[in-house]
């Protein structure tokens, strides 16, 4: 495992505004700040390449924030450095983008530099929902972003959708899903809205008119069914893909494989240790020291991540990784929840059903401990 290829994650912490539900680290950038940030990312990659002595990477992901805000030049500069340091042969290289403005020139440049996958923040195809979400683009602008991406030669495109947002109905959700089909994307990430404490939403919880627990659950199931109908097979709690278009990078997280994350608030798992760079752009630029989060890759962690996937936890996977099958108390516990429709067990392992995914925060410990 520790000799396999790494995933590289670059957190681009710039946004031109803060969405009221988002608690990812981001701020407004200036040219100077973005230049300094770019240099810091590159020197950080260089540092790790030295430490890891020639280990390669086969996926790279520019996440954010809004990676398109740093511009193609800086993004390509980081990408070139990464290629020089980690090889990136046959790599899946993804950039997240948020709609708005003319993205076509950006797409063309990064495509030429080797970015081969895009993840576009559509969130909803309904302008009312977008407004209530505090997004700074319309559905029409988002559709244009997809068209521009295709025109620039991208085929592997993912769309983000949000579930259980204010004003959403099963009908409006189906229309957003249908838009994904129509736009020709290969992959959809559909996230249930989570109200985080330190966000505008979190502080104004009482003022929100969010669907209740039962309605939210129904919307989730509806999204799963609808996306499946459109040819997007579910492979993780919130991720759906056409055949051959699962996100290789994200699968590394869920398979408990190793990755290096650089940039403020980026997380890493390398040589059995988990660590992260703290939030705070200046701190990252000036110091660039990571914070240790302790050991990783134990059975609990492995199982918890595997159970996010539709492939679930298998004896084969456990044998390969830990030299033993799924512990019997875990298998028995999983069996106990099958009748309630939360798990699905087979000869060589088990997985959570959609109903199980919906309560996985509770189901996971119930099965594991």
């Amino acid at each position, binding site marked *: 495992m520790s000799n396999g290829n790494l*995933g590289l*994650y670059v*957190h681009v912490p710039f946004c031109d505004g803060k969405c009221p539900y988002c608690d*990812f680290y981001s701020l407004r950038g200036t040219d100077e700040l973005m230049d300094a940030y770019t240099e810091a990312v590159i020197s950080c990659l260089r540092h790790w390449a030295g430490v890891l002595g020639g280990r390669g990477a086969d996926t790279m992901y520019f*996440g954010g924030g809004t990676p398109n805000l740093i511009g193609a030049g800086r993004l390509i500069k980081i990408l070139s450095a990464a290629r020089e340091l980690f090889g990136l042969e046959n790599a899946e290289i993804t950039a997240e983008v948020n709609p708005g403005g003319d993205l076509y020139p950006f797409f063309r440049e990064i495509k030429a530099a080797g970015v081969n996958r895009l993840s576009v923040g559509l969130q909803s195809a309904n302008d009312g929902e977008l407004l209530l979400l505090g997004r700074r683009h319309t559905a029409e602008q988002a559709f244009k972003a997809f068209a521009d991406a295709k025109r620039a030669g991208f085929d592997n495109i993912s769309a983000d959708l949000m*579930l259980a947002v204010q004003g959403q109905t099963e009908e409006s959700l189906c229309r957003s899903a249908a838009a994904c089909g129509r736009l020709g994307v290969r992959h959809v990430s559909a*996230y*249930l*809205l*989570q109200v985080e404490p330190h966000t505008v939403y979190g502080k104004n919880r009482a003022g929100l008119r969010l669907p209740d*627990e*039962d309605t*939210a*659950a129904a919307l*989730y199931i509806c999204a799963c069914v609808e996306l499946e109908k459109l040819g997007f097979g579910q492979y993780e*709690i*919130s991720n759906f893909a056409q055949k051959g278009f699962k996100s290789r990078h*994200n699968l590394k*997280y*869920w398979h408990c494989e190793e*990755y290096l*994350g650089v940039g403020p*608030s*980026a*997380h*890493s*798992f390398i040589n059995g240790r*988990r660590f*992260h760079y703290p939030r705070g752009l200046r701190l990252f630029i000036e110091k660039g020291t990571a914070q240790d*989060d302790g050991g990783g890759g134990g059975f*609990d*962690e492995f199982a*918890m*991540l595997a159970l*996010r996937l539709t492939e679930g936890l298998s004896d084969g996977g456990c044998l390969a990784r830990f030299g033993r099958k799924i512990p019997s108390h875990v298998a028995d516990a999983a069996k*106990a*929840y099958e009748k*309630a429709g*939360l798990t699905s067990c087979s000869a060589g392992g088990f997985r959570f059903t959609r109903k199980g*995914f*919906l*309560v*996985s*925060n*509770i*189901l*996971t*410990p*119930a099965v*594991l*401990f």
Partner: protein
Amino acid sequence: MLSGRERIRNFCIIAHIDHGKSTLADRMLELTKSVPIREMENQILDDMDLERERGITIKAHAVTLVYSAKDGCDYIFNLIDTPGHVDFNYEVSRSLAACEGAVLVVDASQGIEAQTLANTYLASDAGLEIIPVINKIDLPGAQPEKVRGEIEDVIGIPADEAPCISAKLGTNVGKVMEQIVKHVPPPGGDEAAPFKALIFDSYYDDYKGVVIHVRVMDGRVKTGDVIRMMATGGEFTVTECGYMRATHFEPSGELSAGEVGVIAASIKAVRQARVGDTVTLSSNPAKEPLPGYRPAQPMVFCGIYPADGAKYPDLRDALDKLQLNDASLTFEPETSAALGFGFRCGFLGLLHMEIVQERLEREYLLDIITTAPSVIYKITLTDGTTVSIDNPTNYPDPSKIARAEEPITDAHIFTPKDYVGNIMELCQERRGTFIDMNYIDADRVDVHYELPLNEIIYDFFDALKSRTRGYASLDYELKGYRESRLVKLDILINGETVDALSFILHEDRAYAKARKMAQNLKENIPRQLFEVPIQACVGGRIIARETVKAMRKDVLAKCYGGDISRKKKLLEKQKEGKKRMRKLGSVDIPQEAFMSVLKLDE
């Protein structure tokens, strides 16, 4: 000059909670310069945290003061504090038996309360000279003349001389002191007779062992004498005796008839020196003990369990330590299928139970789960034998019960007349039988009911408080047992009986309580991964049912950007949290669920 004994005044202060007993005691300490001003902490006599917070005295204390009276003589004042709560009536009666006089403090704005009256009756039954005092005259709502009339009409003692004071400001406290000198008779007793002393309080000291507070009735005792406890039979050698001053112990080497003081004799636990017992000398014992001794009789029982099963030994240690100082607390090991290992504990009453629970939590930092309180039921079986049941778990099969009896109390509730309706309603709900009703004055009423004890121990005080905005006061005493249609209510969660939630109650109350309990449980059991039925049963018949719906959504949708720390933290927290839940079959029941059924006021 007066002789020694003629200069002694033994007295106590009787007052309702908050009427200013401790404040008055503080002023007396000040006035007699017993405490240097800089050490004067408010309410020095109430030295347990709990007492200070609740403004009540839980245990009696006594202090010896020297008062220089206007007649030019110095008097020895033995101020014996009394517990102010009905749970401790017996302790009160023993404290009173150690006195010749009682200062009755009545709040000038609130008037006489139920407990004041009960304790005043105890005092006059004990033959004490009662000195009424009207306190808090500094308050805007004070009506001293009205209260003066109330004392005369309700209690039936002359109050024309009653000083109007403000203990808080110190106003007229000197007058109270002079009245004590004038009206409280000096103690009697025969110094030549065999030694005989009444234990009215005791406490455990880490260095001296149990220190007993005594009132010497006859004879004398010296350091080195061998004393005998007449009821429990124990014999001990006196290591120290003397007077308890406000801030220190003053050794005297001996105590003689009429005096109040303390004796230490390497006694290991307070149960060897029980309140009410008579101390005499082993070498020259008294023929008869003093009247009135009664071993502590627990009336209320409940199970106490550690929230974390691993803390069972800690709980045992804590109870052991509490018992060193509290002879009326009883406990024995008990096991529950739902709660594991714990103890069945017996208490004098509800307040006593709450005090013990709070002390376990605060002083011993234990997280505990208590089960519903129970009284002692007397059950006659079909084979003619009689059993006493204080634990629902031991309740016999209904087919084997010939006759069931429950304890009944005689209860007085003092209330402003506007709340009489509410109180009668409450008492009817609680199966009370109306006896009579008397006007204390134009505004206040004494509502007299017969109430089953098991209705009182079950959040009656809270209910009374909420229905009278805290203006009513309650006093009760056990009257006897009466036949009753009792049933055992069982709670089933997910089809399994939860023994810790069972309780015994009157048949007529079963439906309402079953419904309320099921609702409370439903609110306090978090949604689980599957639907959980909650059923309440009497004799196998389901009389109430609720369902905890299955949870629908609890998921971290985004586990992403490589940041799995949140998900991991959540998982670790849940691993911990599971230890705090009680696993019942496949249902996790939080501690709050067990506690919620104790609060059932509709």
